[in-house]
């Protein structure tokens, strides 16, 4: 596969390490009342669609960016690649 890195252009997927569902960005609040349940769901129940999937890839043999790749799990087609940091910010993560 080839991943169109937003900063570096097309890079072979072999340069990357895969993590999984980009929901892993949405780490729950540790002080939430339901923290135990929320962390369980965060840790163990991930999206696993047969179709478009937002997922985290780490450019390990490259610039060490974490990317959010939108990829179709049926065809492996990639429609979008973003810096995970930008996605995290857009989802309200900060410090």
């Amino acid at each position: 596969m080839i991943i169109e890195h937003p900063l570096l252009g097309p890079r072979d997927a072999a340069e990357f390490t895969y993590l999984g569902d980009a929901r892993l960005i949405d780490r729950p609040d540790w002080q939430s009342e339901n923290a135990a349940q929320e962390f369980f769901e965060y840790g163990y129940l991930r999206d696993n669609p047969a179709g478009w999937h937002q997922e985290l890839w780490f450019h390990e043999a490259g610039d060490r960016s974490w990317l959010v790749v939108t990829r179709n799990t049926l065809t492996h087609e990639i429609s979008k690649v973003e810096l995970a940091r930008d996605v995290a910010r857009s989802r309200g993560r900060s410090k």
Partner: protein
Amino acid sequence: MTQKNRIATGGQIDRSRTHSFTFDGVTYRGHPGDTLASALLANGVRLMGRSFKYHRPRGPLTAGSEEPNALVELRDGARQEPNTRATTTELFDGLFAKSQNRLGSLKFDLLSINDRLSNFLTAGFYYKTFMWPAAFWEKLYEPLIRHAAGLGSLSLKDDPDVYDKGFLHCDLLIVGAGPAGLAAALTAGRAGVDVILADEDFRMGGRLNSETFSLGDASGADWANGVVAELESLPNVRLMARTTVIGVFDHGIYGAVERVSDHVHTPDAGKPRQILWRIYTKRTVLAAGATERPIAVENNDRPGIMLASAIRTYANRFSVAADKRVAIFTNNDDGHRTAADLHAKGIKIAAVIDVRPDAPKSTNYEVIEGQVIDTKGRLGLTSIEVKLTSGSTRRLDCGALGMSGGWNPNVHLTCHQRGRPVWNEALAAFVPGDHLPAGMTVAGAASGEMSTAGALRSGAHSAMSALDLKGDIPSFPKAEDAPVNLKPFWYVEGCSRAWLDQQNDVTVKDVKLSHQEGFRSVEHLKRYTTLGMATDQGKTSNMGGLAIMAELAGKTIPEVGTTIFRPPYTPTAIGVFGGRHRGQDFHPKRLTPSHHWAKEQGAVFVEVGNWLRAQWFPRAGETTWRQSVDREVLATRGSVGVCDVTTLGKVDVQGTDAAEFLNKIYCNAFAKLEVGKTRYGLMLREDGIAKDDGTAARLAEDHFVVTTTTANALPVYRHMEFVRQCLFPDMDVQLISTTEAWAQYSVAGPNSRRVLEKIVDQDISNEAFPFMACANITVCGGLRARLFRISFSGELAYEIAVPTAYGDALIRKIMEAGAEYDITPYGTEALGVMRIEKGHAAGNELNGTTTAQNLGMGRMVSKKKDSIGSILSEREGLNRDDDLRQVGIKPVDLKASVPAGSHLMSLTGPVDAAHDQGYVTSACYSPCLGHAIALGFLKNGSERMGERMRLVSPLTKVETEVEIVSPHFIDPEGERLRA
């Protein structure tokens, strides 16, 4: 031997030179341009192999890579190569080949008894028998079957050849250099784009080399030569003959194998045997041509029975007559071409038997409307029996029979991304479907364009549309443009032992049985009968089987469907996928900064991941590793030792939020760590299990240096970047892995300060630089360095780091400075012994299933802050009273050992899994204590100090009584490291 079947003139062989070669011990001659199969046929040899199951005599069915029958063991010694297709093996001088899959000689194969027993050995017979007595399957039946099965033999010697891998990039990849591929290449090449044209054959031109068609005034082969010459002159075109595109992978990546040296006796010095190319391309034109299919006729598997197109290829390209008398059995016009070409070369045509009433007639030879219903000839065809439409039968003497059942487009690569071909009624064949791999277009016969003119047109057109070129398509010379006239005809009514899969011996009868027993889906058919599972992967067999199944099931062929085409297109040497990654080059070697110095000292090295680390440093007179390790430990604890610890991961953490960041990644608190201090840190995974441990040294308010274990250097860095970029993107913190940037040594032992004082420029007295201190310092009068007063051994100890380039100099300097204290280099074994003596956890304890509690560090998990893993570490299953706790273990009989991997059981009671109390993680002999010691995990272990238990290792036949003790065997109060 003479080349008795060589036609006097013509062909694309170099008659001016002769190659000598050996097959089954007999020496023959052929010419450059021959394949092994064509040369053998030229010499009158048509028996080349035996079939898989019945060991029926076999000759070549084809003249290409789809060959199921003529498989040989090529070359000898370590280069012996089983199952090599004689039909694609380029003849070279000195070629050596043997027939395979026989017991006895090829002519008298004792296993041909199976053919007599064929009535018992029908499809799937083995599923129904060999079950009694139960023990006999493995002892008797299976060994017999295994020895009879298999095709060729490996030499079982290491492959002596080298394989390479490489990357290529292009705008347009063209697969196949027949008329369509050449036309596409010419169109794209002239347009100036980067083109790769790959063809599996050693001669480009595809079918043009096998036909007598002319293109304009030139023969097809000459035209192809001219085009190839022009393409060779274009710098933007890369021509790759002997290159098979084996698979289509995601996003325009194609796998291709170039056979660099298979056509020579041994590879030239420095040349690989083959190269695996990964071709990255935006657009692809698939011009892979088509493969003729046979017709199922009773006993249609004898040597001499071939595809009609193969007989034509042997005659036209290789100038070989398959026999002096040849018959053709066809359902379409193309079969007649073979007859016409052979006749023109003076070969006698016994008859053309055509199933169609409207077959073209000939004045040169007899055309019979009818069917071939049987054949004769024990080791090769001698005659055929023909049934005329009138009902009468005739026997025709002939030594070769060409079968033409129509052509199947080579759609394989269009299906590698799960595309399904679609049925074309006119061709009675599957053609590429709509769901092609992205960027692929199909041209020529592969797309169903069966005429030469059509191939040229579609090739050029495909290139233009793929590249979005404007204007007229290039003009090509006038070429044959005949339509396909065909009457679908798959098998002769009433046939039974009519071969579909010639290699696996799957006959029409087997397909009928498969249907009878309910194995009716195409995948069941394949699996039950093994149809299409031979080395040609069904290229010559599948369609016949499908057609028969369709008829039996009352369905159409497309309703029955096809099996899935998967890579590789043709079988591919495992070696080429391995490339140079074998032997010592399997993985790269990482060498520590002191490696060369350690080698000078005679160190023994050990693999730690990709690193090589000094394991111990033997000295003269030491005969066992234990002697060396014991000495290193005692010397370190008694005076001073030095060890290269560069392999530990190092991550530089900088920024105003650095401390807050460490608070997130470690379960214990870091925010209040003073500048100039180091702290042990335990890192959890988000699931609450211990991930890694190490130290974090605060060199400045906004600057930490984090260490990780050797094994986790990369995963921990990746995890830290995840936390930084994905979870806390606005933290002002930057990370960089500096594992390779700093050479780091542990200097340990009571005299370590005295040694370092001679090197370090600053004051490192106990007051100025106490336990857990850290600082940026200089050594040797100004070289920047880092010093950490941390201890893995439990001794007064330091870790000192200098830029890697100075690593070698520093170890030499330390040794020089330590000489007066008999400084002793120690390796990973002594390091391990000392950490076990001290009770420090390492990889064996941090095994991915242990919690902070298990490790005796439960209280470290701060509940006052948010850190990775703290919430899920609270789950009930991770906090049970009888959880495992890390303990020390010593033998009651001090002479006994306490091997790692042993399990702990109560002194009394059964020894089984239900009564398992824990296990030993790390063990060693402690030279300081004079007996074996171990660390382990024991249920509720921290409450069981002093308890005696049974340590059992039934695997290694060990059982010994042990005492549970504190894991801190040495200096439990930590006085030494604070000294």
